């Protein structure tokens, strides 16, 4: 059987290459369509997926699952309810594929010092020791992983190329660089290639400094291998992700800012281990800030600093740095991802039941015993003095990335990522457009051709407002949002504004489009809640409140042309049951305490930036 698998893989790799060449034949929509995908997923070749979950799903199977094909999972077939448009498998590059050698007790790795130490142990008991080899830059004792890592990397490339079907399904060759300074703070980056070839991946054993990763990417780029890096879990970075300083403790300078903006045009805003938009203590006036918060480090129970760990804060810091060093290092757009380690990418609340993997809910839904475990608030680590701090109840279902691209092809999707015409959602396929300009008329969105007009007279999400015409007083934003046809109605659309005032940044959330006939209280500015149709008894909700579609042309009422500003969109659904509620109800268990029973799923756009014209 092995042979058959190998042959099929080789044949696929070749068809993939042939198809890549034919990508030019795919029709392109100049006004762009929304495509949805996952840019962060682990398979059996990631040490932690293999050791913690016993994941057997290969990259090839992960792509097939994302495309909607059935794949073997545990003792049955698993299938995604609705196919994704794109996927990038991002296995940890450190010792990629090496731990799979433990499958064979006679393998050289099983017989190495470390292999013997691990033996047949699996799960969290060995994870912490092993983690040192991945994130601590420690070479494997008595074992040269090179032959295995290179052949695994080739398998990753073949799986990506073999599953790329221009116009239908896009794959990107990718990996995760797993830097974790002091074994504590998460500075991980995923690296994505534009083409169908890629040099050997960079690892945290090469260096755990992002600057060195950029040097590597820059030299790849010179050789024609275009790539970009996307940081994730800023929430668990202890303030290092969006720091004022570089990895050497020196204040960020212009060169650093330029390189960061060039190599890291995007950040993950949400995933399995928390949402990194903002934190209630950073945004006390934002009533929706407390959403899927995970404010600890990833390994251990230590709290992660909120400062320098969240996207909104980074946007403000970026404006300050732009003023002081001349370039904004934090001028990034957003993506959403799962970071699942089961090889199965899913993003709906019912295709997740705790832990670090997606499931096919029709075949894999946990029984009462497993559900009880997942719904008990307890650190995952054992024994008690060796807590990993990962409380499953605080984990969330997967997030996804939306891109506005001309076609579902590698070049088109990669280029959308590069120009930040992206958005993220906490799971549903919300669809929204966000344009900034100076001349949009209030009636713009009534025209059937409004998208064309909006592109012509302004910039989409991820862009810079064009230079302000002398006659223009305030920027205008064309905003349109559509519900996911398989999910809940929309509550509201908000614009989050961050701006610079006297050397500090400030933030404010504007409600710009509301469902129903709600109006903001003229005194407090607060909008009444949309309501709640969730029936906690059977974990259901009804779309009897909220809107299908919301749209508006919004003018910033507090615009000051002298102050740099960042604007991004947040789209909220009406309340729906959280995964933990669905899991409890399906197993006739009580709802877990200290955990929200309902959530308002949401989408975030990449921002539009305003920079005052330089006085000459």
């Amino acid at each position, binding site marked *: 059987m092995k*042979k*058959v698998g190998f*042959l099929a893989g*080789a044949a696929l790799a070749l068809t993939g290459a042939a198809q890549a060449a034919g990508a030019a034949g795919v029709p392109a929509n100049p006004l762009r369509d929304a495509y949805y995908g996952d840019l962060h997923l682990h398979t059996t070749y990631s040490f932690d997926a293999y050791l913690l979950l016993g994941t057997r799903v290969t990259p090839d199977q992960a792509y097939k699952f994302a495309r909607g094909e059935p794949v073997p999972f545990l003792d049955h077939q698993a299938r995604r309810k609705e196919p994704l448009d794109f996927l990038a498998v991002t296995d940890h590059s450190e010792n990629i594929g090496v731990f799979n050698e433990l499958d064979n007790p006679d393998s050289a790795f099983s017989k190495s010092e470390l292999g013997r130490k691990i033996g047949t142990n699996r799960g969290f008991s060995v994870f912490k020791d092993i983690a040192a080899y991945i994130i601590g830059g420690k070479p494997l004792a008595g074992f040269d992983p090179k032959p295995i890592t290179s052949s695994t990397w080739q398998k990753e490339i073949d799986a990506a190329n073999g599953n790329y079907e221009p116009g239908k399904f896009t794959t990107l060759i990718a990996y995760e660089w797993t830097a974790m300074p002091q074994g504590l703070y998460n500075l991980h980056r995923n690296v994505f290639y534009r083409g169908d070839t890629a040099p050997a991946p960079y690892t945290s054993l090469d260096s755990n400094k992002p600057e060195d990763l950029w040097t590597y990417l820059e030299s790849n780029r010179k050789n024609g291998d275009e790539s970009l890096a996307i940081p994730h879990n800023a929430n668990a970075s202890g303030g290092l992700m969006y720091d004022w300083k570089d990895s050497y403790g020196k204040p960020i300078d212009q060169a650093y800012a330029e390189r960061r903006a060039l190599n890291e045009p995007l950040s993950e805003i949400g995933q399995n281990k928390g949402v990194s938009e903002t934190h209630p203590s950073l945004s006390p006036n934002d009533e929706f800030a407390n959403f899927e918060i995970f404010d600890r480090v990833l390994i251990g129970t230590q709290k992660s600093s909120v400062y320098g760990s969240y996207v909104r804060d980074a946007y403000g810091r970026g404006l300050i740095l732009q003023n002081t060093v001349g370039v904004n290092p934090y001028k990034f757009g957003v993506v959403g991802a799962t970071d699942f380690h089961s090889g199965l990418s899913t993003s709906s609340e019912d295709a997740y039941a705790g832990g670090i993997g997606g499931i096919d809910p029709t075949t894999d839904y946990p029984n009462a015993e497993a559900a009880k475990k997942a719904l008990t608030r307890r650190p995952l680590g054992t024994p008690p003095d060796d807590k990993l701090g990962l409380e499953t109840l605080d984990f969330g279902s997967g997030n996804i990335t939306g891109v506005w691209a001309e076609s579902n092809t590698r070049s088109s999707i990669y280029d959308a990522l590069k120009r930040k015409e992206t958005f993220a959602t906490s799971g549903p396929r919300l669809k929204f457009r966000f344009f900034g300009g100076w001349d949009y008329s209030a009636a713009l969105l009534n025209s059937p051709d409004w998208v064309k007009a909006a592109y012509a007279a302004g910039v989409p999400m991820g862009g810079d407002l064009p230079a302000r015409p002398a006659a223009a007083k305030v920027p205008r934003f064309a905003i349109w949002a559509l519900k996911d046809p398989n999910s809940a109605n929309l509550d509201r659309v908000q614009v989050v504004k961050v701006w610079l005032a006297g050397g500090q940044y400030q933030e404010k959330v504007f409600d710009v489009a509301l469902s129903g006939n709600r109006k903001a209280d003229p005194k407090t500015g607060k909008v009444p809640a949309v309501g709640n149709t969730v029936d906690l008894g059977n974990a259901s909700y009804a779309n009897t409140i909220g809107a*299908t579609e919301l749209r508006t042309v919004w003018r910033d009422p507090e615009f000051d042309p002298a102050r740099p500003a960042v604007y991004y969109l947040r789209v909220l659904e009406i309340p729906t049951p959280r995964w933990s509620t669905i899991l409890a109800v399906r197993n006739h268990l009580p709802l877990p305490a200290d955990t929200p029973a309902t959530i308002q799923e949401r989408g975030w756009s990449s921002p539009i930036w305003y920079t005052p014209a330089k006085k000459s």
Partner: protein
Amino acid sequence: MATLTAAVPAPPRRLLLRRLLREPFLHFVLLGAALFLAGQHLQRHPERYRIVLGRAQLDEIARNYARQYGAEPSPAQLRSLADHTLQEEIYFREALALNLDRDDQIVRRRLVQKYEFLQQDLIVPREPDALQLQRHYEQNASRYTQPARRSFTHVYFSPDEGGDARAQARALQALAQLQAQGRTRAPELGDRFADLYDYAQIGQADAARVFGQSGQSGLPQALFEAPLHQWSGPYRSGYGWHLLYVTDEQAPRLPPLAEVRERVHADYLDDERQQADAAAYARLLAKYEVKREAQP
């Protein structure tokens, strides 16, 4: 006399094999295996320390280089490649002498793979005749059947305009009007829809992606049950209520064999090969006495 001639297999007879033979990995495996065999040969002969690099070997090195880089190597490059090959051969012999090939999972796997390839080469499924192909196509018709497709225009009624019940009622009103007027397209009778008003030849899976497929949305199924050339509905999608006018239908279609011959042919060979593989393994297994001391 030891030589470094790589075992170049007989010209490939099948497409798949031909593709495989272009794989650098396979070259690696084959070259490794050849060196291994050459090494074994050496161990049994006194010429362990004699190496002859012949014209044929140099030509082979040059050919490999040209295949990989698209240009002939310069004399200096060829010289350096030959030196490298020589060093490799010497290290290889020394490694064999130290029995480094034993207990090495990688070597073991490569050898197993090599055997698998040889086996592959031995099992060449016979080309199917017309009748066999026809039978394979008929027995696996579901693999080749294309799902039904329909073309339609629709009128959309949004719950955002006065609520869901009202949208449904408005749709019913419009339905009566359309039926009386005999019109076949009228998006303006309803609300603005975010996607298209006219869809050409879409399958149920595509319709599900546009209109939703769970909870409220029954439209993708209804589309394939709706009568042709008349208005029907209203049907609920994930966005609201719709009236449909189906203009065209392509029933599930089993393309004639001629249209899918290439795929059927490849599938036939694949299936035959898998069966032959299994049979070959069964024959080998029968030769061994296997004692299982514990059931897995």
